[in-house]
């Protein structure tokens, strides 16, 4: 009796770790290439963008919101940065700065609609998602923008120690610290847990809600550039469906879509679980469609494991 309760709570508490290690071990056994440095670096290069998006999404989700606009922000950031670098003589730093500003503004719009106009996060971010993607198509005329030379590709160059991986790692560490050791991280999760109580405790809740969407926007913008860097090409199609992968990573990491629960580190594991599935199936030559099926089933399994708690 006692033992089964402990096993249950152990499963509930640690299901992200359990799934992560199970996935890791499975991958190692299934393919010898999995652990090769070249493959791991490849995973890092591919996943740095989705990871950033997932971390931004997590902060929004912890307040009880959701940000569907991140995929579109990746697209507009990728398009604008590449256009500026190709046609306006912007350098890499200039391009990134412009993209980050755009991400900030997009996040600010969604956040303001949610926090100050009391719009539902789903609706607000859905609108921004649609409109922003449209803008990206308009400014690129729907065609890809190839940036010649090495400006953009330095971000993924081995000579510099793969900057995207390093930046992504730094961002994760920073947000881990923010979540656990700062008033900001504390208040964000408190807001998602009980907005009214936090407001009555003398905290300007709306500002915090707004700020999470701004963070999400900025991280999505950086992710857009990371994505473009791999092919040196900007496009309005970048980040299609990225919002769903990000949400999936958060949920696998134990976040609750009603807010008040979530962890940066576990979201990292959640994103890696998704990455491993994709990677191992690629290595084994399984098609993309089957990958989606496995991914979907896995999310259900993870949430069911967490669901034991509510009984």
């Amino acid at each position, binding site marked *: *009796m*006692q033992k089964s*309760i402990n096993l249950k709570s152990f499963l509930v508490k640690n299901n992200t770790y359990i799934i992560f290690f199970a996935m890791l071990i499975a991958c190692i056994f299934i393919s010898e290439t999995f652990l090769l440095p070249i493959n791991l670096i490849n995973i890092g290069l591919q996943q740095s963008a989705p990871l950033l998006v997932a971390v931004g999404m997590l902060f929004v989700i912890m307040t009880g919101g959701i940000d569907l606009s991140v995929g579109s922000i990746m697209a507009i950031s990728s398009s604008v940065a590449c256009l500026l670098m190709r046609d306006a003589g912007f350098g890499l730093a200039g391009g990134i700065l412009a993209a980050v500003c755009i991400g900030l503004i997009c996040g600010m719009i969604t956040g303001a609609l949610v926090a100050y106009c009391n719009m539902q996060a789903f609706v607000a971010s859905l609108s921004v998602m649609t409109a922003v993607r449209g803008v990206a198509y308009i400014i690129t005329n729907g065609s890809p923008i190839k940036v010649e030379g090495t400006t953009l590709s330095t971000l993924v160059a081995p000579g510099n120690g793969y900057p995207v991986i390093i930046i992504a790692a730094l961002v994760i560490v920073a947000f881990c610290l923010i979540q656990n*050791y*700062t*008033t*900001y991280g*504390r*208040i964000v*999760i*408190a807001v998602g*847990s*009980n907005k*009214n*109580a*936090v*407001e*009555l*405790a*003398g*905290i*300007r809740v709306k500002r915090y809600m707004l700020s999470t969407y701004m963070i999400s926007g900025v991280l999505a913008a950086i992710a857009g550039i990371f994505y473009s860097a791999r092919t040196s090409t900007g496009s309005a199609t970048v980040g299609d469906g990225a919002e769903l992968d990000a949400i999936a990573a958060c949920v696998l990491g134990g976040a609750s879509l009603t807010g*008040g*629960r979530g962890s940066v580190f576990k979201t990292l594991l959640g994103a890696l679980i998704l990455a491993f599935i994709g990677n191992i199936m690629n290595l084994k030559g399984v098609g993309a469609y089957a990958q989606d099926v496995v991914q979907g089933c896995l999310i259900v399994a993870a949430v069911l494991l967490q669901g034991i708690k509510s009984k």
Partner: protein
Amino acid sequence: MDGNYKLQMKDISKSFAGVHALRDVSLNVKQGEIHALLGENGAGKSTLMKILSGAYQKDSGEIYIDGKQVKIHTPRDAKTLGIAVIYQELVLAPDLTVAENIFIDKLSNGRGYINWKKLRADTRKQLDDLGFGDIDPNAKCGDLSIAYQQVIEICKCLTRKARILVLDEPTAVLTFKEIRKLFDVLNKLRDDGVSIIYISHRLEEIFELSDNITVLKDGQYVTTVPTGEIDKHRLVNLMVGRELKDLFPPRSASIGEVVLSAENIRAVPRVNGVSFSVRAGEVVGFSGLVGVGRTETMRAIFGADKMDSGKILYCGKDTHFKDPKDAVRHKFGMLSEDRKNEGVLLEQSIRMNVTIAALDKVTDRTGFIIKRKAEKKFVEDILKSIQTKYASIENDVDSLSGGNQQKIALAKWIAADCKCIVFDEPTRGVDIGAKVEIYKVINSFAENGIAVVMISSEMPEIIGMCDRVYVMRNGRVSGELEREELSEDQLISLAMEV
């Protein structure tokens, strides 16, 4: 088994994770009686009732209804057996209307469509029977006061032809007038042969209403006595082993300067010109019926709601708090009456709850980075000073009893170092033992020179705790009483239109 009893629960035991919540508890209820179930929080009343309603499964023991042994595995089983429970936490759908909520499980009566006209008429009749003719069947439940929502909840059970009705603290949120009406209804139901199990912490009610009393303590059966054969004194002793006069602990506060004075506060529609003042070290009560604008007055001053007009002098300065943050920054705190929705963060740690209004006290010089070690000590010191029971400050507040949850909410304002604090119904839904502890905390606030405002609907509490009392009626102060003038008669006559 004995055929005289409508319901018999025999030798019921239940444990959670190896801890006994109930040990060989028995409860015998006759047909057509009001049976009070008494005990402190944690005594096992709620667990026993959850077993009766099918929410929990007993580990051992037997349940008989009308002398026949029954098995209750699910809430549905209980419903079929004519058992209805009205929980402390209301389970109404806030976006549905009164009529829809009352008839939620038989909206169409099997016809496949809803006869709205009949539904409304039936609802009207139900409400009129209860004496609540002023509730509109078409109103959304979420828009009603908690008191009215409770009435809807009772109505809902009555339409299900319940023969055994369990009421868990039904009057905690009702006004004096509403309580009278509820009692009339309960007496009528008793005469109709319904067996009522009545849980309340208010002894006055139990003496007025019940036929028999069963007392539980620490998960064990103490005794069952006819109400007429016991007095308050002995009853409290049975429950807690404590004397009644110790309920309101003495206070040695010296009263100082005026901290807060409000003049002609208006906030439509509930507050129509309220003036009052409170001095350092003073406990000022706000009495009156539920819904006369006491909470609204304080929320307007606190900046949580819009204040239409009025003047606030705070610490000698003309002040207007534009939002709660502004108020808290000026060391003005307010403990909400709605613990679950506005008081604590239930799914978060004790640590987080205690420091949420005082994060600046546990951060480094940047005001951004939390010093977790210092925070731990800060939290533990505060909790120790108010004798809160907890296993670890990392535990969720959800895992604590109601009384200890309320102490966490109080601890938040101790942490915030207030000069003036408003307690809105600070002892709602907590047992006698925890009440005394909360009174002690309030006393220590006053003894530390803090100006305390206490809104309470419980007259003994107002009389036992306050130095001075304002009584409100229809959004105005209808009277002010000094400590020596306080009596229930005075309070009632000022609270009601005479």
